[in-house]
Every structure is written in structure tokens, then in C-alpha cells.
């Protein structure tokens, strides 16, 4: 089943005008500059005003064209967007609790399953390999530690790199 979402161009233009108004409201307390030089609000307000102007032109053009921009959105298309987005959101939300290695493994196995890799014998080793390699590359070689889990942390059980490769 497909739903037609009409006037998306007008909605977009209206949102841009609202954003511009929001910038003016949020910058009302910004300090002014010294003497005749502009203050902290000057530049964002110039940008916001220009966005509002261009959005108004887009809106007028859309009204004059009398041909509302319409997106036909099918259930399948929504699911195809929502599932990866949901996986990604869950991945980022869960990672602080379970850490990078376990979080990445779960994300990869889950999203690969949705993407068509139904054999766990393929997806699990691949997920483990990617998570562990990235853990070592970032932690040891690039000196950028990835998140440790506050509840569960698999990385604690991984040997430090000198044991694995002899690299400090």
C-alpha cells in the first residue's frame, strides 16, 4: 500500500522559515559587538534571514506552479528505511552499556540478517572479525579507545596487543 504525501516542497519551505525564526529567537540574548562592529548574533541572523527569503521564494514558486510536489511512499519503502535506521539508533543507544565489541557484533549480525545474510555461520564470524579488528586498530595502532561497556564489556577479555602481535 502506498500513501501520497503532497506538498512536501511547501512543508520544507515552511520548516526553513520556522528555523530562521528560531534562530532570531535563540540569538536575542547574544552580546552586541564593540562600537560599530557586529555582535555574536549578527552573522547567524544574516544567514537565517537569507534562508527565510529563499524559502519564501521556494514557497511562492511552488504555489505559482500549481503542481504540488508529491512523494508516493509505500509501506515497503518505509520499512526499508526504518529498519536500518532503527538498528543504527539501537546500536548507538546500547553501546555505552555493552561496549563497542558486543554492540558492534549485535548490530552487524542483526542488520546482516535483515539484509539477507541468514546463515549465522557466516554473519557471526564476520561480525566478530570486524568488531575485534576495529577494536585493535583503534585502540593499539591509532590510540583511540572505543567505548567500554558499563554493564558488559567483552573488550576486557581480549588480550592486549603485545600478546597478540608483539606490538606495544
Amino acid at each position, binding site marked *: 500500500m502506498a500513501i501520497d504525501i503532497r506538498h512536501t516542497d511547501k512543508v520544507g519551505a515552511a520548516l526553513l522559515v520556522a528555523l530562521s525564526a528560531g534562530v532570531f529567537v535563540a540569538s536575542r540574548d547574544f552580546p552586541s559587538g564593540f562600537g560599530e562592529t557586529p555582535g555574536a548574533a549578527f552573522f547567524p541572523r544574516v544567514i*537565517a534571514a537569507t534562508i527565510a527569503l529563499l524559502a519564501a521564494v521556494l514557497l511562492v514558486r511552488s504555489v505559482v506552479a500549481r503542481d504540488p510536489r508529491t512523494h508516493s511512499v509505500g509501506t515497503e519503502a518505509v520499512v526499508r528505511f526504518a529498519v536500518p535506521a532503527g538498528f543504527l539508533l539501537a546500536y548507538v543507544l546500547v553501546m555505552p552499556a555493552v561496549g563497542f565489541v558486543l554492540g558492534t557484533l549485535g548490530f552487524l549480525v542483526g542488520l546482516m540478517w535483515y539484509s539477507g545474510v541468514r546463515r549465522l555461520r557466516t554473519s557471526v564470524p564476520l561480525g566478530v572479525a570486524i568488531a575485534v579488528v576495529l577494536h585493535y586498530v583503534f585502540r593499539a595502532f591509532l590510540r583511540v579507545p572505543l567505548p567500554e561497556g558499563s554493564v558488559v564489556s567483552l573488550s576486557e577479555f581480549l588480550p592486549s596487543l603485545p600478546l597478540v602481535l608483539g606490538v606495544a
Partner: protein
Amino acid sequence: MSVVGNLLQGAAIVYQPFALALIVAGVLIGMTMGSLPGMTATMTVAVLVSFTFGMEAAEGMMLLLGIYGGALYAGSIPAILIRTPGTPSAAATVFDGFPLAERGLAGRAIAVATVASFVGGAVSVVLLAALAPQIASVAIEFGSAEYFALAVFGLTIIASVSGDSLLKGLVSGLLGMLLATVGLDPVLAYPRFSFGFEPLTSGIQFIAVMIGLFGIAEGFLRYQRGIETEQVSQEFTNVIPSRADLSKIRNVVVGSSVAGAFIGAIPGAGGDIASFVTYNEAKRWVEGAAATFGDGDIRGVAAAESGNNASTGGALIPTLTLGIPGDSVTAILIGALMVHGIRPGPGLFQDEPELVYAIFVGFFTVYVVILVFGLVGARYWARLIDFPGKYLWPAIFVLSIVGAFALRGNVLDVWVALGAGALGYVMRVEDYPLAPMVLGLILGPIAEVNLRRSLKLSGGSLEIFYSEPLTLGIFALAAVSLVVPFVQAWRGSNTESA
């Protein structure tokens, strides 16, 4: 130090085992990703830039330049074999590359593309090394008024890179400029739009935005449209160009290489624009091309490929000398250098000459590696075209999240990347181009700081912007670059209605 001395110093940095290994790794990664239809050089560099944070700046550049050149070259392989450009820069390669493949001459087309890419890239690096120090020596004298004028000029380029909708392109650029105002005000150090949330006072990391716009948003679109890949039926063997072919493409390659480098040097005009322009110009000027281009003429492949790879060295000219990105990839290179506390611009040539010359030598080496891997391994890259998206896209999402986190070890940057991914997805669906947003993100702060500094110096008088011929000249260029696309669009619509 003399130019030769600087080049030797640069070579001493590049010709170390680790730096060379990074070049080779970068080219391999770039060629792998470029061979996969739809994987852009920008996306690959954005997703993998975090791997350079723990390296020395010069080493990180070697990896990123390898990816940049490798991806741009390898985009030609699927363009020739399955009529789908691996990167947008290879779109013009399809016109003659695919007809050659249909006649069973895929190997010949790839050989020509490889040689043309090498010559284009190498010529552009030589031009870069010759011109950049001269431009930097002039630009070092620039004051805040000239810099403001340059930033405005850079921003007006948005009009020419906005595709079908100039208005939407301008909105996209302005949104980028607005995003860049989040954080401490650059003059008064007052927190703007942080809403009391302390981590936001240090601003939005534009690399996180780039990861979202080019990595995550692309992933969302791919999943929505289907991640299935096209199968390659074409087998080919001979990828060494014949002497006759080399002789036939010689003039086209040289001309397109020089033209491509100069087009690439225009801020915002990347490989895609360069390849279309050089292809069209070759079609106009080369004898007999009007009749044969589009039907499998190897000179068409050569013009497009030398043009797009030449744009890479050209794009580095404004990037290194003025701090203004030549295209989306060089915008990320600016971000990668800033992570190391290095700000590209004319001062770079005085403060870090060894880094600058290492970039020249390293990028030339990248193209030598591309030539070797392209001629030796084209058959293997061709096999990657149908690599299943069901494995690839989950991994790209992971790299995007890790890349954003690694910027500062901060979850905020991950949320910024996710937000930018959602924004980029909506913008793509609504036909808002993303490249202008990148220009806005980088040039917005330069414009703001120099505008306010200039006004402070002049006591609020606007005279500072028109009292010097140079400033006035740059503003005139900005006006021309803003008006020309509107005039072209207006003429186009008049012609259609006539």
C-alpha cells in the same frame, strides 16, 4: 630552502616504509571502494578519515590521498563494464567506455582509462607543485578584507555546483554556514546555540557532519532503494595499452589533464564537472570526435578520465594555499589536518613546508601506484563490482559510527553524524544538493571571522571592502560566478519555451 631542497625533504618523509605502505593501502582501499558502484571518493574518505587521527599528519595525508586518487580512478571500471559509474566523476566515462565493452573491448577501455588517469593525476600534481607556492606567497599578504572576499567568492561557487536547483543549493550552503555558527563565537567567545549543553560550546565537528551526510545518508538511501548489486558478465584479459592507442590519445590526454587541473582548482568544482567539461571540449575540438564520441571512441574515455583525475591535484591548490576546499574530498582533508592542529592556508607553506612538499611527492607517488595496480590488477577490481551490499552496508554504518566517535572520543559527535545522516537523507529525497552544505560549513566561519575583523579594523566602515583593487577584484569575480549560473538557467528556460 630551494624548491628542490623542499621536494627532497618531502620525499624523505614519503619514501619511508610506513608512509609508502599507507599510500599502497590507501590506493587499494580507494580502488576497492571506487569499483563498487555508487561508492564515492567523498564517502570513502569521510568514513575512513578517523583511521588517520592517531598518525602523524603527513602519514594520514598519504592514506587519504591514496584513497582519493584510487577511488576516482576505479570509478571508471564499473562505468565501462556495467554502465554504472563507480563514482559520479566517472559518469562521462560511460559514454564511450560502455560501448567499447559492448564490442568486447573492455580491457582496451580500462587500459586507456588507467593511463589517462595516471597522466591526468601526475600532470595536476606537477601543476600543483609549480603553482601552489606562488599563490601562497601572494596570499600570505592577504588581510582580513581579502579573506572575507575570498570566502564570499568560495560561497558564490555554490550557485554553480547546485545542479538543477540554484535556490536549493543556496539554501543548502546557508544551512551549512548556520551549522558552523554553533559553539563559541569566534570574536567574543560567547556560546551560541549550545542551549546550556556544555559539549556543544566547542562547536559541531564538521567531519562528523560529513560522515553523516555522505556515509549514513547514502546507506539509508541504498537500503530504501535496494542494496542488490548488478552482475558483471564481461570477461576481459588485455589491459596493456597498445602503442597505437597511446599515440591516438596523447593530445587529448595532455589537453584534458591541464584543463581538468584548472577546473579542479575552482572551489566546489570537482571531478564530475571536470570530466564532463573535458569530455565536451574534446568532442568539440578533436578532429572527427563529433561523429565518433559516444560510440566507443577511446579518446572519449581518455578525455573524461584524464579530466577527472587531473581535478584532484587542482582541487588541492585552493585547499592548501587559501584553506578553501576545491571539492568535497579536500574539505575532509582540511578537517583531517585541523584534527592535528594544522590549518591549511598560505601560512602552511611557511610553518609546515615539509608537510606541503610531502603531499606533492606523496600524491605523485599515489598516481604511480594507481598506474601499476590499474594495469596489473584491473581484472580483480572488476570482480568487486558485484560484491554483495548485504555485507558492505552494515560494515559502512559501523565505520561511520566509529569514525564519528573517534573524532574526540565523544558520543555527541556520533549523534551529530546520525542527525546529519537523517538531514542528508531528507535533503537527497527533496533534491537539495549536499556539496554546497560542505562549502558553507568550511567557508562560513572564515567569512564571519574576517568580516568582523575587517569591520573592527575600519571602525565599522564598509570602505575597507572596496578601497583595495584586489579585494574589489575578488568581489567582482564573486558577482560574476553568482550571476552566470542564473543567466544560464534563464537562457535555458527561454530556449525551452521558444
